[in-house]
C-alpha cells in the first residue's frame, strides 16, 4: 500500500507545473494544477469537469465493486416479484422479463433488454473489479486499460435504474388486476442502483491511466518528453 502511494507521489512530482490536457468537450488546452482532495477542475470555456481529485478513490471503489458484484448475483438469481390473481401464481426474475419477450416473438427487443438490464451492468462491474485489482500492481498492466475502456462503455448501456422505474410503472398497471408481492431480487436491484452510482462517484479513472504500462512499451520515465510536445511544455 505504502509503495503504491509513493509511486503516485513521484509521478505527481515530475508533472508539478500541472498536466497539459485538451478539454474533451471543447478541445481547449489547459494545465491542470495540483488539486486539493475532494475538489474538481472545470474547463474555463465550456464548464466540463476536466479533472477531479477523489480521496482514496481506488480502495473505496474496489470495496463498492465487490459489494456490487455480490448484490448483482443476488438480484439476478432471486425472484424479482410474485403475482397472485384468480387463484394462480406467477413470478419473474430480471432475465425472465427478457425471456418472455423472446418467447412471444420479440427476439431483438428481448436481447436489448437482457443486455441493458443484465449483461451491461455485469460486464461493467466485472471489468471494474478486475481493473481495480490489477491497479494494485505498479505499473498497472497494459490490459487493464483495455478493460477499463470496455467497462466505461458498458456502464453507459447499463440501465438498472431505468428498469426499476419501469417495474414500478408495470406494477401499478397490474395492481388493479392482481396482488403483487415484491421479492428479494427487487430489493437487491434497488441496492445495486445505489452501489453503481456510488462506484461512479468515487472512481477517478485518471489514477489508473496515470500508472498504466504504456501500449507502445515506453518506460514511465520517458513518458513526459515523448508524449507531450516540447513546444508547449515549459
Amino acid at each position, binding site marked *: 500500500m505504502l509503495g503504491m502511494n509513493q509511486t503516485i507521489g513521484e509521478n505527481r512530482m515530475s508533472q508539478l507545473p500541472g498536466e497539459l490536457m485538451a478539454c474533451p468537450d471543447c478541445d481547449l488546452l489547459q494545465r491542470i494544477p495540483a488539486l486539493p482532495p475532494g475538489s474538481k477542475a472545470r474547463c474555463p470555456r465550456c464548464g466540463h469537469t476536466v479533472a477531479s481529485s477523489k480521496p482514496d478513490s481506488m480502495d473505496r471503489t474496489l470495496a463498492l465493486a465487490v459489494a456490487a458484484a455480490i448484490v448483482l448475483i443476488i438480484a439476478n438469481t432471486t425472484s424479482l416479484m410474485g403475482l397472485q390473481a384468480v387463484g394462480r401464481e406467477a413470478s419473474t426474475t430480471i432475465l425472465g422479463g*427478457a425471456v418472455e419477450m423472446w418467447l412471444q*416473438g*420479440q427476439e431483438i427487443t428481448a436481447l436489448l433488454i437482457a443486455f441493458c438490464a443484465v449483461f451491461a451492468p455485469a460486464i461493467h462491474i466485472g471489468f471494474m473489479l478486475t481493473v481495480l485489482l490489477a491497479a494494485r500492481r505498479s505499473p498497472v498492466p497494459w490490459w487493464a486499460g483495455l478493460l477499463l475502456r470496455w467497462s466505461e462503455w458498458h456502464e453507459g448501456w447499463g*440501465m438498472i435504474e431505468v428498469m426499476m422505474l419501469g417495474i414500478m410503472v408495470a406494477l401499478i398497471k397490474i395492481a388493479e388486476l392482481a396482488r403483487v408481492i415484491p421479492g428479494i431480487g427487487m430489493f437487491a436491484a434497488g441496492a445495486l442502483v445505489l452501489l453503481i452510482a456510488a462506484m461512479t462517484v468515487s472512481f477517478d479513472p485518471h489514477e489508473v491511466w496515470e500508472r498504466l504500462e504504456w501500449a507502445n512499451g515506453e518506460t514511465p520515465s520517458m513518458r513526459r518528453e515523448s508524449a*507531450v510536445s516540447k513546444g508547449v511544455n515549459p
Partner: protein
Amino acid sequence: MRAGVLTGIRLGLVSCESCGLLSRPLRVAEPGHCPRCGEELELRRHNAIQRTWALIIAAFICYIPANVLPVMVSNTLVSTEDDTILSGVVLLYETGSWPLALIVLIASVMIPLAKLSALAYLLITVQRRSIEGQNDRIRLYRIVEFVGRWSMLDVFVIAFTVALIQLQPLMSVEPGYGVLFFAAVVVLTMIAAETFDPRSIWDSSNE
C-alpha cells in the same frame, strides 16, 4: 468568442478519447494510436456530422411505426385489446395515477422527439459554423446525453407486464411490433448522441 484560443486542433495535438492523454502525432491527418492506451486517435470523430444525421433520420423513420403500431396486445376470455404507447399513457391517467402517466408521457413521447430536434438543431448550427450560444448548445448536448437512457422506460414496462401477466387462458399480454421500433428509436438516438462530436460546436470560433 475570443480570437486565437489555444486548442488541441490548432497546435496539432490530439487528445485520446479513451484515456485523455495529449500527444503530438507525426502526421495530423493520420494520428495513429494512443501511445499509452492503444486506442485509435482522431482529431475529431470521423464523419461525425454525416453519421449523426443518418442516425437521426433513421430514428425519426422508426418513430412513426413506434407510435402507430401496438406495443401491447391484451387478451382476456372475452376480448382482445391493442395498446399503443399513447393509449397506455391515457390508460394510466384514467386509472388515477396521473404522476406515472406524466412520467411515461415525458419519457416515451416527449424525450425522443426533443432529442431528435435537439440533435438536428446542434448539427445545423455546427454546419452553419455558428459562433453564438456555444455554452447553451453544449448544455443542450449534455442534457441529450443524460436523458437518452430514460426513454427505455416503456420497453421495460412492457417486458415486465408481459412477463407477469401470463395467466392463460384467463388473461395474457403479448408484446406488439411497436415495441421493436420504439426500442430502435431509443438505441439510434443514444448512438447518435455518442457519435456527435461536442468539440465541433466550438471549432468555428477557434480560428
